[in-house]
């Protein structure tokens, strides 16, 4: 008959403890890189770039003009050209203001009504004046202004998106 090796309780718990330690170390050694690996790209802010949308001499004072923005954005491992329509308005002061094309209420696309001289959102009826201020409807804030600059007669815009529904603009 075979003799079964019996260990004392102290020895048993010592081996159990070492086994637990070894497996925990492996677990930890994997958990840390895996967590970073999963989370990091999700938290990475989308970088946007300046892109020329046209020359400023095309703009007439207080007449909103729809211009095409074509900037390159990184979409994960892809570099894609993002095409967006943006609204540029030359102010009486000569400065140019560029509005994001997305209604800050719930994210629909609004249009310029040249008869009523107002930006109108077809979804829930928000109305904004030429400076972007809310004049009617459920919109919680003015139209979102995009960073823009003029270089050698060209209008450059950096496209950004903002959270909808808040009373102040928060960049996505």
């Amino acid at each position, binding site marked *: 008959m075979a003799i079964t090796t019996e260990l004392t309780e102290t020895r048993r718990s010592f*081996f159990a403890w*070492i*086994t637990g330690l070894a*497996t925990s170390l492996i677990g930890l050694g994997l958990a840390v*890189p895996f967590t*970073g690996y999963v989370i*990091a790209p999700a938290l990475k802010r989308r970088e946007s770039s300046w892109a020329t949308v046209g020359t400023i001499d095309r703009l007439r004072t207080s007449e909103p003009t729809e211009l095409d923005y074509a900037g390159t954005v990184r979409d*994960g*491992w892809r570099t894609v050209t993002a095409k967006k329509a943006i609204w540029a308005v030359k102010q009486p002061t000569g400065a140019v203001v560029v509005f994001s094309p997305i209604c800050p209420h719930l994210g629909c696309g609004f249009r310029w009504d040249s008869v009523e001289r107002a930006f109108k959102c077809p979804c829930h009826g928000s109305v904004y004046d030429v400076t972007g201020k809310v004049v009617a409807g459920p919109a919680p804030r003015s139209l979102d202004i995009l960073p823009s600059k003029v270089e050698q007669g060209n209008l450059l815009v950096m496209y950004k998106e903002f959270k909808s529904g808040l009373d102040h603009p928060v960049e996505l």
Partner: protein
Amino acid sequence: MAEKLYKWLDARLKLTSLSHTLLDEPIPGGVSWIYVFGSATLFLFCLQATTGMFLALYYVPSPDTAYDTVQFIQHEVLFGWFVRGLHHWGASAVMVAIGLHLLQVYLFGAYKRPRELLWMVGVCLLLIMMGFGFTGYLLPWDQNAYWATQVGTNMVASVPLVGDVLVRVLRGGDTLGALTLSRFFAVHTLFLPALIVFGIAVHLFLLRRVGPAGPWSLEQARQRSEPFYPRQVYMDAMVMLGVFLLVATLAWTVEFPLADRADPADHTFTPVPEWYFLFFYQFLKYMSGPLEPLATWVLPGLFILGLLLWPLIDHNPERRPSSRPIALAAGGAFLLVVFALLGVSLWNLYTLPKTDPSVARGKAIFAQHQCVACHRIHGDGGMVGPDLSYVADRRPDRQWHIKHLRNPQSVSPGSIMPSFPLNEKDLNDLTSYLLNLKSESHKS
């Protein structure tokens, strides 16, 4: 709290008797460090499965995207290079662990009655693991992946009669392309894992039915026994930790770079298979002409069949190595041949003239900056500037080129060449490319 929860579960699921079944399996002759290879293999398989799942978060299996997504994992995702490194080195480690496991079982005669089926399922698991290696190698879609798989699938085509059909089925068409990549991906990440999990379950089930073999000496085995838990579990865990640290260190310190993006038009590329296929690669080099199908299919087929049926072939009931001269001699001879072939192959590879990766990058910079508009190389390009086909014969000095590219007029007064805005790395790579442009007689 934990105790309360355990009691609650135990009352319903009878965990105590389960843990008794799982952990108190007696090991004849007692525990030993020599029994750890199976657990090490299982651990490495789990590591491969886990890292593989994480790689699949970002990898996209299409010729347009595979290479870019692997680059993305390697360079942009936090710890991406580490996860990919673990998967790469883990693949090698699992082959080593299987090899040692097989060797131990062979040496101890542990495949003999009543453990024949355990051995056979083990051989099947080895074959599945090689399938993982073969299908996984293509996925990064770099030059090495593409051309090594080209060679691998062409070997299938040399099978008599059915080869043509087989190779088409394997590739999903008549050439290696999008359908090959997607089916290799599906096989690597869905089909083979399902198969191997089933195989591992059967392997472990059989192990529990027949019990571990223990030492080859029957007297020793009968003298005493010791339960699997805690000492064997402790040894297995220590080895797992050691194996993990080894693989992690390799992943951390030894970069596993991608080759260039797969280019089906570039026939100059010499692919090299993974090291665990190298002995076979070398063997094939000796077998050309009419012997080729013999080497590619008949001999490996017979070998695998022999390995599979070995417990039925080897009738000697004796497990002690000293009483099994023929079996040990056969095993020893096989190892000698494999390692000799591996050695020769590695020696050949290290003496092969290596192309510096910066040369390829330099070539890309040369194209990107339209240098070809003014300079001619081997008959291609403009005639405004000097012909650069053998520029390194005339100008072998790296510093001269770097100065010249920064400011052409500084070393070549009156030159009409413009200076290009290149960073330090691009400058070095472009120079490496230029220095590689030399005639055969100047190549050492």
